[in-house]
């Protein structure tokens, strides 16, 4: 394999994982954009998404050998269940743990979010135990470049990679359109800009914030489903690690900025893949956190965020 081909291979892996980070990062950025809260529990909602999808898959008894139509319907069901479960969970968390603290000092909801994160982690621990669980490998793993297109290359771009991108891109585009074009999206943007003024204009603030958590939760559910299928593993601590990576992505892109979160997700995915391959996987997490610190220090507004004057 030529060096260039290795690089491309690493990039493909990075982009696929980056797509997952982007989905989770959107949840962070949506919530931060609207109520300026780092939803610490978001990573664990994503973990619950993987676990829900895994439970559906195991209950249906899906395997690689299942008939294609059964497999397809089963996967659609797992995706829908994971998305709905996470959307409802995220909304419930907002209602119970964050809404009562909306006017409290900013430390209070953050600590409450950490508490919720611990609760969810413990739920995961009881659900599938302390060690990593195998997520069945259900997707056909056909090499598209060489076996299908007949290109003379050693790069693997499989149906699995394609599946992640095919499912992620419409979700990302759909969310952007929703926020930019629909009336509810406009309400979200208005609430983010000035909650009181938005309320005076007749926007139901509580409903709009709940909707934001609903959307973020649904995306986290989709990411959980995809991550299980793509990486073939589920673990109760994946939410904490994955959540921090995705949060870094959101900050890198400029927290509160949807396009920025997606861009940040892909960058973090690629950087992790490069570090995994060229350096040492053991240092990847440290490198990502170092990036997080550097952005926070030198450009807290992120790549695409606006430089806002400090509120006094």
């Amino acid at each position, binding site marked *: 394999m030529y060096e260039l081909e290795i690089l491309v291979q690493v990039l493909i892996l990075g982009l696929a994982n980056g797509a997952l980070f982007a989905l989770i990062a959107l949840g962070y950025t949506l919530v931060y954009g609207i109520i300026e809260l*780092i939803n610490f529990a978001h990573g664990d909602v994503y973990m619950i998404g993987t676990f829900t999808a895994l439970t559906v898959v195991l209950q249906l008894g899906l395997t690689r050998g299942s008939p294609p139509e059964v497999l397809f319907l089963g996967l659609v069901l797992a995706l829908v269940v994971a998305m709905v479960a996470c959307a409802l969970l995220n909304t419930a968390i907002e209602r119970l743990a964050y809404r009562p603290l909306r006017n*409290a000092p900013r430390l209070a909801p953050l600590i409450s979010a950490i508490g919720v994160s611990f609760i969810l982690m*413990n739920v995961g621990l009881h659900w599938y135990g302390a060690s990593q669980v195998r997520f069945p490998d259900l997707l056909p793993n056909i090499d598209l470049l060489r076996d299908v297109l007949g290109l003379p290359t050693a790069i693997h771009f499989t149906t699995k990679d394609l599946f992640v991108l095919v499912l992620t891109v419409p979700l990302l585009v759909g969310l952007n359109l929703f926020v930019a074009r629909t009336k509810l999206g406009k309400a979200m943007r208005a609430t983010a800009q000035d909650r009181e003024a938005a309320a005076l204009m007749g926007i139901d603030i509580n409903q709009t914030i709940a909707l934001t958590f609903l959307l973020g939760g649904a995306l986290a559910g989709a990411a959980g489903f995809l991550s299980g299928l793509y990486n073939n593993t589920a673990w109760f601590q994946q939410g904490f690690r994955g959540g921090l990576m995705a949060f870094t992505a959101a900050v890198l892109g400029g927290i509160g900025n949807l396009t920025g979160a997606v861009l940040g997700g892909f960058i973090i995915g690629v950087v992790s893949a490069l570090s995994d391959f060229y350096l040492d996987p053991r240092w990847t997490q440290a490198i990502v956190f170092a990036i997080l610190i550097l952005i926070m220090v030198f450009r*807290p507004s992120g790549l695409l965020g606006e430089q806002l004057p400090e509120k006094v």
Partner: protein
Amino acid sequence: MALNARRPRRSTRVHKGLPFAIALAVVLLYPFIDGPVLAPLFGAPTLGIMIPVLIFTLLALGLNIVVGYAGLLDLGYAAFFAIGAYTAAFLTSPVSPLPFRTDFWIALAVSWLVAAVFGVILGAPTLRLRGDYLAIVTLAFGEIVPRVFLNLESWTGGSRGMNPIGRPHLLGYELGVTPLEIGGLVLGPQVPWYYLIVAIGLLSIWAITRLYDSRLGRAWVAMREDEVAAASMGINLVHTKLWAFALGASFSGFAGAIFASIFQFIDPFQFDFSISIMVLAMVILGGLGNIWGVLAGGIVLGLFDRGISAQVSVWLRGLGTALGIPALATIDLSRSRLMIFGIALVLLMLLRPEGLFPSARRRAELHPEESEVAARGELTYGARLPVER
């Protein structure tokens, strides 16, 4: 300004001598009542549980400076604990990569200093940040530091950890090895450790209360309340913040060195995120900014985490068996440690965000409607203003 700059009331100092004397007597006599009184009650001596609890309480005292006094939310405090522990291990352990070894007492002082220096190093980049951004950066540091210790395998032994670690010598006696005999009374090997921790704890409490009443302490509180106002009153924010980070971190240096020496073994997994949160929860439970509250919070939460949850499980299982409730009969609360912790944090924030024993000032901030003035009925509409004669 200088004309009426009266010293503020010493809010954190002990006013009531008697309760303090009683508490001190209980603390000092505890090892003697542990064996004969507490051991039959709990089925085993409690000192083994008490020692880690006290170490964590020592950590909580340090974190209280950063979070409670200066108002800087630090989610990576375990990093300094790790730095303190590894410094002590490097200086005293036979497996250390350093070409020399020192005595434990020197290592203790060096750990204190190294932790303080790292407090400044890790604090410096965060100076411009506020609130939750600061929290995230400290969290990232808290994740990076144990990972560095894990990955620098040739120095730290990586996941195998470091063992053994030097013990303190005092007057020719090595702490924690042999039972101590004083005039026919035999005390377990852990008892001298207990007194060492208590001594360091009392020293820390004394230092921290003095600090709180000092110019620096008042600057911390002013900064916590309003950075802009504090800066315009002439407080140097950079110095004030860095001192908070340095002093806050330094106490975890003590705790880390003692922790390493007592348990004779450290590995990077002992210093993960849950430790940072545990210590933070101790500070918040007790009451941010109130040193006695933090002490109480640390001991209550630490005991719950280390001992009570297992004990309560046993009781609940007994109750479940007696009542014929199978779910209760097989309960094991220690598996739900995180959940109990999480629920406690959420409930605390919802019901009593100022903690169980808040400082008077904090309480007034969080409940303006119940502030002393309003409670006395003064300054409300129609009330007669007190006339000074």
